[in-house]
């Protein structure tokens, strides 16, 4: 049994949200530079020039990359041999998010009630927390600052088994076309396939966190095909036309029911702010 104080989890969470508002994830910046080189639409190239300049200013002058500094999403993978001490871990995370958004001059973008009062909570809390119990005696924290320009364009559909691979491809392409220029392309696209209604949606968002190649060659092939097809749509950077409509497509999958083929597509803007840390 390993004891981990929730204060350490809070402090790390605070640090990560402060970092991702100003620094592109390295893998995403590489993908942007690569797409810039391959882009031949003049207006598309102009957009990439501005995005790269924006990334430089964000770091050097310490101004957030984007004014929508997102809703704070946190995945905690808690080792089953860990004993969390020092208080309520959920509270520690909400407090950490509040501290981070205030101290780093990030935007308070959360309202307390979705339908009636819609009153701003003033410090971007609460966070959205997903917890998983995993083997081991460490805690992995993964964070994402998800803007809602792109979240609004995400979709879930309960496909049927007969629709198969073609049905998935059609739904993904349709979702990207509907997002069009509105959600800040070139996009990073997370896809969940299988599971049930809500787990599929969560998978599609967690897919955006992945930094490595898909280990399953069937799914990595599907990702490649989808990316190629998406990049023939001529939506392009910011929708002004060009090759780069998406930077990455990442699929996660899970067992599902004999009657089902749930598919969720989480659209993310070109910044795809996320980071990870392990507490031992």
């Amino acid at each position, binding site marked *: 049994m390993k004891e981990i104080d929730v204060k350490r989890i809070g402090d790390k969470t605070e640090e990560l949200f402060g970092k991702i508002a100003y620094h592109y994830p390295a893998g995403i910046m590489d993908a942007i530079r690569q797409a810039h080189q391959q882009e031949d639409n003049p*207006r598309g190239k*102009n*957009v990439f020039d*501005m*995005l790269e*300049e*924006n990334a430089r*200013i*964000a770091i050097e*002058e*310490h*101004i*957030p*990359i*984007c*004014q*929508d*500094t997102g809703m704070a999403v946190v995945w905690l993978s808690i080792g089953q041999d860990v004993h969390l001490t020092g208080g309520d871990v959920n509270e520690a995370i909400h407090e950490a998010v509040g501290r981070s958004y205030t101290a780093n*001059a*990030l*935007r*308070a*973008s959360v309202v307390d009630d979705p339908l009636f009062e*819609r009153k*701003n909570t*003033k410090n971007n809390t609460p966070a959205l927390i997903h917890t998983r119990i995993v083997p081991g005696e460490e805690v992995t924290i993964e964070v994402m600052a998800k803007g809602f*320009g792109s979240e*609004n364009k995400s979709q879930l559909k309960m496909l049927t088994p007969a629709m198969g691979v073609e049905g998935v491809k059609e739904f993904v392409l349709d979702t990207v*076309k509907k997002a*069009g*220029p*509105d*959600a*800040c392309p070139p996009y990073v696209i997370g896809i969940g396939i299988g599971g049930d209604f809500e787990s599929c949606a969560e998978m599609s968002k967690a897919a955006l966190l992945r930094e490595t190649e898909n280990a399953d060659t069937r799914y990595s092939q599907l990702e490649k095909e989808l990316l190629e097809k998406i990049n023939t*749509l*001529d*939506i*392009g950077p*910011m*929708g*002004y*036309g060009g090759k780069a409509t998406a930077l990455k497509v990442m699929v996660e999958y899970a067992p599902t029911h004999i009657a089902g083929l749930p598919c969720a597509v989480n659209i993310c*803007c*070109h*910044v795809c702010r996320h980071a990870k840390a392990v507490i031992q």
Partner: protein
Amino acid sequence: MKRLNLPLTEEDLRDLHAGDAVLLSGEIYTARDAAHKRMHECIEKNEPLPFDIQNALIYYVGPTPATQGRAIGSAGPTTSSRMDPYVRELLEKGLGGMIGKGRRSRDVKDAVKEHKAIYFVAVGGAGALLSKSIVKREPVAYEDLLAEAITKLTAKDFPCFVGLDIYGNDIYDHGEL
């Protein structure tokens, strides 16, 4: 790249075409979802709008807080289509144009053409870069809305593109859009 001073003249508008890159200087008002809802309520109740909308330009933005020595924080455009339901009535009251990002509804496109107004689009996710073209920010109304409050910006060479022009052309009319 065209340099333009605000408010735009009829001659300026005749010379602008969807896709043109422009640099805007002058006064711009900020308003997004919640502020539009309140302005709509003003119109419904026959109350005056919180600023002189005649020929004004509204920027759909909710900036991050300004840090010391700066006029404004990160300040890129938000998705315009959420404000579509409010556009026609504001154009009827004299609104000159808008800055945002993304496609507009059929009704907004028609209304922009009918009123000889303009819609500019700025690069989303370039809020740090765009903030450097805003030299001043003053409160106007609805301060309780925080980032969504209406404020008056003074822009200096704010870079954007013509999205919808007075002739009914749309920067997004291409490819699979």
